[in-house]
């Protein structure tokens, strides 16, 4: 099962390697990882995508929480959330395919951000399903290169994930 997990960490030297090392050392899967400063400049938000059965995810959440620099861990499986990912795609764009690409970019509300005599570079944002659909459609035209950010996520409505005290939300039994 695929989980998007948000990890609030101290915005300090070396924290990323602690999180990455935890995943490699314990053999946890890591599909994507996105890190940047949060609203509070002393805190960074890491959004990572991992997969595993319930027992593994429980360990992932607990082990993340155990790291001294980790302030809070949230498994979005337990929340209503929205997530978005950005992808940059460089596609072959000859006279026959340009029209088609433009149409597709318009349908998917993307942008063309760079043009060369033989290529277009496209920018598309969306959730996983949308990006998948777009890439399936554009693939026959000849993708030369593709770069993705990995998803970031945020809770729906007025719920805010912020630093208060250290505990794991969702998953991770333990404290009864």
């Amino acid at each position, binding site marked *: 099962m695929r989980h998007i997990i948000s990890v609030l*960490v*101290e915005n300090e*030297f*070396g924290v990323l*390697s*602690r999180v990455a*090392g935890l995943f490699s*050392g314990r053999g946890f899967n890591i599909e994507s990882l996105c890190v940047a400063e949060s609203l509070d400049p002393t805190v960074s938000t890491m959004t990572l995508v991992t997969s595993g059965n319930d*027992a593994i995810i*429980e*360990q992932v959440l*607990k*082990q993340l*929480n*155990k790291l*001294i*620099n*980790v*302030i809070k861990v949230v498994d979005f499986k337990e929340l209503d959330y929205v997530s978005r990912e950005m992808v940059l795609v460089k596609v072959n764009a000859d006279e026959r395919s340009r029209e088609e690409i433009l149409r597709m970019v318009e349908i998917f509300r993307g942008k063309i951000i760079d043009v060369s005599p033989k290529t277009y570079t496209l920018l598309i944002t969306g959730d996983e399903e949308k990006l998948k659909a777009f890439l399936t459609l554009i693939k026959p035209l000849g993708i030369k290169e593709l770069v993705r950010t990995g998803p970031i996520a945020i809770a729906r409505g007025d719920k805010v994930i912020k*630093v208060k*005290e*250290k505990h794991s939300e969702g998953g*991770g*039994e*333990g*404290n*009864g």
Partner: protein
Amino acid sequence: MKKTGAQIFVECLKMEGVDTIFCYPGGATLNITDVLSGSDIQQIVVRHEQGAVHASDGYARASGRVGVSLVTSGPGATNTVTGIATAYMDSIPLVIFTCQVNTMLIGNDAFQEADIVGITRPCTKHSYLVRDGKDLARMIKEAFYIARSGRPGPVLVDIPKDITSNLYEFKYPEKVNIRSYQPTYVGHIGQIKRAMKEIAASKKPVLYTGGGIISSGASAELVRLAEVLSIPVVNTLMGLGGFPGNHRLFLGMLGMHGTYAANMAITSSDLIIAVGARFDDRATGKVDEFAPHAKIIHVDIDPTSISKNIKVDIPIVGDSKNVLQKMIHLAEQGGPEFKDYHASIGDWIKETEQWKNDYPLTYVRNGTLKPQYVIERIYELTKGKAIITTEVGQNQMWTAQFFKFLKPRTLLSSGGLGTMGFGFPAAIGAQVAYPKSLVIDIAGDGSIQMNIQELGTAVQFRLPVKVVILNNAHLGMVRQWQELFYEKRYTWTCLECTPDFVKLADAYGAAGYVIEREDDVDTVLKEAFRNGMPTLIDVKVNPEESVYPMVPAGAPLREMLLV
């Protein structure tokens, strides 16, 4: 007032109440070494940095205080890794100070540079690289706090040399405030009540307890709970001493070399109450068939230990002492639900006693010198009043089986990592903590050679540690596996060219003895224990002897090979 980093370092150690540091010098330690020499902190200079960390570990295990070591950069730092990993696996509170090359040189592959924070990241509870001297005092304060609080563990602080000589404003931080680190000590009362209901409804409860009892100082509470509810107790290796080894409710150690009674009790139990233990594979045997009829209550301060290896029915995150106190309180109130419990528990006790009587720990006395006999005699001669360290392998398992540990912090052994070479430097550390106690390292001829150089330390600092070498001329535990599972092909495990330990002791200025016959055991041990000197005792034991019972790796606990 401004102080150098080295002065700040020493001030901080004093404020933390550090009385001893285990150390080895190098270019990068010079500024600190110079200031330390004028302080009243005792400096035990070892012969190898691994020895420094193990010694500080032995000091910590024996005393309950944080063990402190200081080494230089590069190879000095990398030599500490095995010691740190050993302490990490056994949750021992250490602060390891490594010195680092100058700040400006970090990352440049400078002489004696190693990224020790990176190298030790997976085997430390936390670590610091001091990049600015103004953070030094805070980081040291936090390091000690993190090392000893929650689930204890080693914390490494890496200090570049220029920071030790530069001047900084010094103010000792009175408080630690780490927003991202708040260990849970108090167990959830709802969960504890649920646990008590399960106990009341059980017919065959077992207390399965580990090192958490010792680190939280919960030994008295464990005895009390076991007695109030008449629950038999099994210990992990790390838990030995947490419950008196001569208590009528004690069934012994469980697991691969556990007692028949302990392993059968786990197998037959309908309720396991695990406290401060982590269901390690050497304790559980085949996980799928561990305690097949039992519900499991698990008390642990570390949430990651719960439901990691074994699915738990009632998790309780908290300090063992705190949780046991609440359980005792509820058990003493009794309540109607405990009526049937007390009526039926006698049958279960009888069943466990039958196992103890039918299959006690034993070995064949055939005129040869048996290692088990030597350990039994050490127990009798000391009346259990000694601090025992072990190396790893057969010596460790026989010690766990045949020495009755009566009090916490009397067995110091590398349980998790299984580090050969641990016992001797750990004994040195324990002797430093308790200069008047009898400290005995029960070793093998293989593992003693892994840190034998610390004889120099023991002699220099007049630490009268006794090393009983159960010399079977083999790496005995691996040899045992080869005997049982590799058709007696003793590849690499026959130790030829072992030194003459008596001459070796003499060369260092220590005392040396040989024991070759059963009849000499008592006489020589008595003499060795009161000679006031660091001592090697070379005991030529029967090389064929194996450790039994044995549950083969991957088998369920009930499948024991007996003597």
